[in-house]
């Protein structure tokens, strides 16, 4: 691995959760040997259904969750070293969450946390400098200071709040933005404005974005590379055009085919096997997708497939071995 190229490198990260009661404990690999890297000024998408472990990865990167095994390297330094200078790490890695209505304390004015951030990181000396500083970042997302000044979250719209939460993350001039489902709670008509914002910030501020989503349409539109996760494993990873226009893994194919078209005359056809209980699928031997896969063979249920490189795309499926 060339250490200098990647901004953030995730190497064989595993997260084990223990579920169940006192006597019947089961260990579930919520994230299993996941490796990927994000380059500077790259938008990297982590896609998959709910409960596939994509948010767990975000939490591990942000330090909210301990990884069980593996290594995370940010700017060529292990995340264990960053722990000692947590404030500096936070300054460089910022986060945007799913529900903008819940991102701000309902009892505090929205600009509260903006001031808190700029003073905390010693970005400005006093209020006189703070206001233009905050205003500048808000302008970058299409808001202004007067729009949020002494307003409470309940007085702003979801789109405004989500853009404000992105602006707040940009205050510290981060090099990586971890965006966990940033558009799934935003009105459909505003989604593109948020996604476009990511693309523009990447151009203007050299910002890398880890875009976590289940929405393949916006992922295709905005990202450079994509990793599709299923039950704790990356099943397919590569350039976004290659992966989504020409999906190789049966799960990616299923996801791609599930994108509804805005065409009422085209009926959705094909039958889908309904997912098993999440826990069952996690504990399954062999390929975790075998229970739902229409192409599953005997070896899929027994052997865990290895990653194979097919035309620049990493695929974890027996059909390509």
């Amino acid at each position, binding site marked *: 691995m060339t250490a200098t190229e990647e901004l953030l490198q995730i190497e064989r990260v595993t997260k084990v959760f223990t579920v169940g009661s006192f006597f019947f404990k089961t260990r579930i690999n919520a994230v299993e040997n996941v490796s990927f890297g994000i380059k500077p000024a790259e938008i990297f998408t982590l896609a998959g259904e709910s409960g596939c472990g994509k948010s767990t990865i975000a939490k591990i990167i*942000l330090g*909210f969750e301990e990884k069980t095994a593996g290594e995370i390297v940010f700017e060529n330094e292990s995340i264990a070293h960053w722990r000692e200078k947590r*404030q500096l790490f*936070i*300054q460089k890695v*910022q*986060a945007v*969450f*799913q*529900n903008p209505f*819940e*991102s*701000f*304390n*309902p*009892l*505090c*004015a929205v600009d509260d*946390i903006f001031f*808190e*951030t700029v003073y*905390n*990181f010693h970005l400005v000396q006093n209020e006189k400098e703070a206001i233009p500083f905050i205003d500048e970042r808000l302008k970058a997302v299409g808001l202004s200071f007067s729009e949020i000044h002494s307003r*409470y979250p*309940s007085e702003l719209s979801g789109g405004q709040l989500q853009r404000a*939460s992105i602006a*707040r*993350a940009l205050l*510290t001039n981060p090099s990586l933005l*971890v965006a966990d489902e940033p558009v799934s709670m935003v009105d459909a008509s505003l989604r593109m404005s948020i996604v476009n914002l990511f693309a523009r910030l990447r151009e203007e501020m050299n910002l890398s974005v880890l875009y976590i989503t289940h929405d393949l349409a916006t992922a295709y539109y905005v990202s450079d590379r994509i990793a599709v996760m299923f039950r704790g494993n990356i099943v397919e990873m590569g350039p976004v055009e290659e992966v989504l226009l020409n999906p190789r893994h049966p799960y990616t194919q299923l996801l791609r085919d599930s994108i509804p078209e805005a065409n009422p005359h085209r009926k959705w056809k094909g039958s889908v096997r309904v997912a098993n209980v999440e826990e069952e699928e996690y504990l399954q031997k062999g390929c975790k997708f075998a229970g739902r896969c229409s192409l599953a063979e005997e070896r899929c249920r027994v052997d865990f497939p290895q990653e194979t490189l097919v035309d620049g795309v990493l695929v974890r499926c027996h059909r390509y071995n």
Partner: protein
Amino acid sequence: MSFVKKCLVPRLIQYFLVTFLGLTTAFFLPRFLPLDPVEQRIAQYQAFGVYIPPEQLEEIMNTLRQLYGLQGTLWEQYGIFWRRLFMGDFGPSLARYPTPVIQLIVQSIPWTIGLLLLTTLFAWVVAILMGGVAGYFRNRWTEILDGIVMVMRPIPYYIMALLCLIVFAYIFPIFPLSGGVGIGREVSFGFDTIVSIVKHGALPALTLLVVGIAWQFQSMKLIVQGVRSESYVWYARAGGVRERKIIFHYVIRNAMLPMITQLGLQLGTIFSGALVTEMVFAYPGVGWILYDAVMKGDYNLIMGIMCISVVAVTTSILFLDLVYPIFDPRVRYR
């Protein structure tokens, strides 16, 4: 201006309406009791062995009715009730004729308020601090604390009160068994009197504190646990907001809101006394005289206590409504 129009006026109208209905209930309810104070009084005489000839009975009953102000129709009485109420007069106590009701209440209300106000406020503050800490930090000590409370909470109050009484007043006679102050002592502001009051109040206060802290601790702990995992707390943490600020400005502050409501409602109920506490410890509070009044069919006294209680509850709710916007900007009127 819009504050007065949109917030104050409707609240006040509601306040007066509810108070009026409550006071009306306070007037009618004792009169639906299956007890007749006149008959009670006569039964009392007969219990002493007084022989009343049947031809005189009717006459005595009429005299008593007149004396008690129970003559006339219900509506006439109701009219008199309102006229008297505005002068702060609830009429004479029927069981302890002719002591005015208001005098009985004034005598016992300081005991009740002294005991309940102090324990309610103290329990609230302690429960919030302990519950906040126990909800935010999960470690061995808070688990132990939680375990103790879980064992304490389901014990019925009267059993715990009796246990305290047996242990701390009988087996180890540290505190007096009953009363609000030493027998025969003049209630004045001397040092000895205050020591005596504190000593007598200690056990009732202790039991009330244990119960009050236990259940409020549990609710505060659960609320904090809920708030702690709210998205905005994580967002603040991801944004580098300091942990101190997160604890006080994000978690405790948000968790306080339901607790403030709880406190406001509790303060209103203080004026009706703590019946079981006052019974077990023979504490001379409002609860005690209310119990006495119900047993003796003392209409006026029941009514008097109910009226004060109704006004106290509605007033504390009005107060709560008016100060709540200070704590919660979402209900602020602009």
